[in-house]
């Protein structure tokens, strides 16, 4: 487990990417492949965010301390799929026109929310290696990485806003329930420890 765990999780996390890559070059993404890729990379960003944030509650409740070993990798895969999602938007929707993108982001609240979420992940990804923890000091590092909670809120806002027009909240509600209970667990534990 210890020896094969990390490579196995790494390979499994790359599976969605591999499938999308294969499907892109084999015309297997339906009538609107650009839209499919954009949506799909967004979905996978959210899923990895859920997995990342599930590590601590599952570890504590289940007493599975070895889970901690995978948290960083899952977090970095969240960032990876988030960057792909941004690239899909920038490339397929905006034709990599930087001026157009800069004008578009503040114009559309749901794009702004998504962009904020991804931007907040940059410092987390940039300080994800061990040396960064030493430089910053564990306390400051941990405080910085609490930004992931803001990322979760921004991601949910992004998804809800995007589906707003169709009143079709079936999927965003599922993510709200998952992320809500994962964040709620932390709040509950904080209160319990203090009292």
């Amino acid at each position: 487990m210890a020896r094969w765990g990390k490579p196995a999780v790494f390979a499994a996390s790359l599976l969605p990417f591999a499938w999308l890559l294969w499907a892109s070059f084999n015309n297997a993404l339906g009538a609107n492949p650009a839209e499919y890729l954009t949506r799909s990379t967004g979905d996978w960003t959210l899923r990895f965010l859920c997995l990342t944030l599930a590590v601590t509650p599952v570890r504590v409740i289940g007493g599975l301390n070895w889970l901690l070993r995978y948290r960083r990798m899952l977090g970095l895969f969240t960032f990876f799929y988030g960057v792909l999602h941004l690239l899909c938007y920038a490339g397929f929707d905006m034709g990599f026109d930087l001026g157009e993108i800069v004008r578009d982001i503040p114009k559309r609240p749901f794009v702004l929310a998504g962009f904020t979420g991804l931007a907040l992940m940059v410092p987390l990804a940039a300080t994800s290696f061990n040396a960064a923890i030493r430089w910053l000091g564990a306390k400051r590092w941990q405080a910085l990485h609490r930004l992931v909670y803001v990322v979760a809120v921004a991601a949910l806002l992004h998804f809800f806003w995007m589906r707003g027009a169709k009143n079709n909240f079936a999927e965003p509600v599922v993510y709200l329930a998952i992320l809500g209970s994962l964040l709620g667990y932390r709040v509950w534990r904080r209160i319990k420890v203090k009292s």
Partner: protein
Amino acid sequence: MLIRKSRFPVPPASEITPQAVYEQRREFLKLMAAGAAGASLAGWAGRRAHAQSGKLAKLTGARSAVPGAIAADKPTSYKDITTYNNFYEFGTDKEDPAERAHTLRTRPWTVAVEGEVRNPKRYDVEELLKLAPMEERIYRMRCVEGWSMVIPWVGYSLSELIRRLEPTGNAKFVEFTTLADPKQMPGLRSPVLSWPYFEALRLDEANHPLTLLAFGLYGEVLPNQNGAPLRLVVPWKYGFKSAKSLVKIRFTDKQPKTSWEHSAPHEYGFYSNVNPQVDHPRWSQATERRIGGGLFEAKIRTQMFNGYEKQVGQLYAGLDLKKFY
């Protein structure tokens, strides 16, 4: 009136029409010249079968002579046209209608025509099919979401029906209602819109020869997911104006509030003409993705009135299109 020259270069038809189809047109013209048109129309349409699913009943039409009715653009594949649909009565995902619309029963089917007309009537769809000669029309279809297709419809001008109804002097608008039967349409369970789906046009828009009452596509009857057994097609307006699976057509003196106006009035107006200069509040309408172009094909520029400005521009002379979006 100012006519803007399109910035989107229109290539010559020979460049974008598939060679095979182009050849068939030549052949068709020869047949016409030979005076054998009537007898061979069916055969000509039959030879285009390579693009069809071939599962549905044939419904062919003569090539329309209405100005603007035959777009030079390359038609979208039958597969894309019939698997990428917005028909919320069957779910909000694009694949939902193709997967679920088999529950729609298209026979028996009647359309109630009522309101400000001298001859109100409940039409059977079989009667409507025989009301006027069927025509094939190749229309661009621009969805408000920013994608587009090119669809070879089969049908006739809605004006053919309107003429027979004899609207009264009070008739100023025409309303179109889609079937809303929860037993046949699983999407009605979600409160996406207030059902039934409801659309409307000004009477002069409804009477424009390009406004089509469509019964088929690609030489066959409409598949359920595309709005069988009959639907409206208004090519210069965003796709949602073209209501599907019609059960009621009503003439009225007041401008009605459509389903989308009711749901999000600041996003969807009564007119909803395709207009690259008026953005949707949540996205730009300047460009569109042509379905079937593949992953790395650049988006194309959206044309004023979806490229039908020459035919329909005069309907809106003097109207502030930013205000009446």
